[in-house]
């Protein structure tokens, strides 16, 4: 689990450490790439052990938003953030927070599967563990098996753990990346369009997996596929780019409600395909 300072400067008086504040709370979050504002005043709560989907047209800031949750945004030169993101009540932007440590708690899966090309299937999954700790080989094997099982890949790869990860199919590679993210036992799993490079069967497998992983992890998934958002998520956030190109959260609510009776006309226009 994430080890962060227990007192959180600037996180708002008295509300940062209560048990009810588990999950991810985004408070007045703004993000910039140089002078271009990419996110404006985002406020939302991603509930623990539930799936939150972020939808919206290209450029609306959904990827930027989730990259702010594991502090990957600031890696881009000129990028900066104001506001706060509380993970289980702890501000991840508080001074003294180690971004590397944070990213162990907040795993991420990207659009295109990106297994380490020179590593075997086993080593791909073990990579994070080897980086962070000296674990005996036997223990390591246990974690790799557990992670591959969780990612619903074990049965397909158990006899070829020493083959390169890149030898797998696209869908398998993506599940390998999920296994790699799970190996370090994160609290949160961020998924940035995890199925956009996959065929429908592989997509269905990932969606099934998301439903299963929900029991253990807080999952945030960015997707262009609205039916996917409808199928896998419990909550949905809809984002749009304002006139100055900054991304704003237009509507956030239960997925069932968003897809049957959205409150905001812009959400309705987007999800019914009458946008722009």
């Amino acid at each position, binding site marked *: 689990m994430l080890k962060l300072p227990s007192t959180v400067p600037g996180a708002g008086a008295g509300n940062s450490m209560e048990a009810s504040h588990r999950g991810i709370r985004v408070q007045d979050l703004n993000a910039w790439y140089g002078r271009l504002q990419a996110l404006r005043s985002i406020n939302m709560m991603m509930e623990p052990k539930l799936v939150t989907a972020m939808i919206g047209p290209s450029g609306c800031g959904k990827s930027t938003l989730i990259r702010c949750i594991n502090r990957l945004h600031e890696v881009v030169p000129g990028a900066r953030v104001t506001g706060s993101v509380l993970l289980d009540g702890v501000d991840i932007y508080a001074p003294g927070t180690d971004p590397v440590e944070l990213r162990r708690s907040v795993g991420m899966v990207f659009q295109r599967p990106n297994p380490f090309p020179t590593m075997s299937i086993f080593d791909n999954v073990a990579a994070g563990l080897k980086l962070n700790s000296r674990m005996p080989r036997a223990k390591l094997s246990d974690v790799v098996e557990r992670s591959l099982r969780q990612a619903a890949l074990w049965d397909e790869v158990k006899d070829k753990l020493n083959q390169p990860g890149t030898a797998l199919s696209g869908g398998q590679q993506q599940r390998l990346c999920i296994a790699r993210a799970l190996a370090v036992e994160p609290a949160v799993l961020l998924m940035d369009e995890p199925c956009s490079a996959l065929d429908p069967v592989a997509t269905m497998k990932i969606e099934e997996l998301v439903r299963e992983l929900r029991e253990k992890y807080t999952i945030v998934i960015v997707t262009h596929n609205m039916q996917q958002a409808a199928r896998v998520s419990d909550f949905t956030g809809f984002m749009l780019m304002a006139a100055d190109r900054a991304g704003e959260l237009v509507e956030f609510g239960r997925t069932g409600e968003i*897809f*049957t009776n*959205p409150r905001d006309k812009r959400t*309705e226009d987007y*999800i*019914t*395909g*009458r946008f722009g």
Partner: protein
Amino acid sequence: MARTELDLKLKGLMDDVLLMGSLVEKAVEKSVDALKRRDLELSRKVVEEDNIIDRMRQEIEEKSIQVIATQEPVARDLRFIVAVLNIIVDLERMADHAEGNAKISLMMGDQPPLKPLIDIPRMAAKANEMLKNSLNALVARDVGAARKVCADDDEIDALYDQVYRELLTFMLKDPTTIDRATHLLWVAHNLERVGDRATNIAERVVFLVTGKMTECGISKY
């Protein structure tokens, strides 16, 4: 971004529902007209034509399922299709009530009329007015107009009360009229049901527009 194909299909569904609605309206009108004028030929026609309405319901349902399967409608589009799927059931049942009246008329055959029919044609006219208004509210997506349809149901209930009391008086006075009076009572009951189904359609309009399921008025019967 437009959704020409989906919009075209939704418009097609709306047109079909309106066409079906107008056939139902005619069936209700003809069934009471035939009864009033003792036109058995017309009654038979109403019974026959009910098949057309039944078929229409099936066709609209099939088209709706096609749209759901191929166009993945959500939000207001999905609510519209769900509304249509419910409305066509109510329309079909209204037509069945008209058919029922036609069958009663045939059953009565050449019995002498119990009395000149006044309130029953009024009930039919009111029921048809509610039907027409509910479908107009659907086209206009007008919640106010839909709620008005529900309120109008009280009028039809009041007429039904009146018919019931009158027929009861006949039966009490002269038990030989019981058979004929009961037939007319069934007719009145069918028309009262047509009114109730118009309020169902109105409730679907409220759902379509607001996304909230409501019973907009509880019928006395």
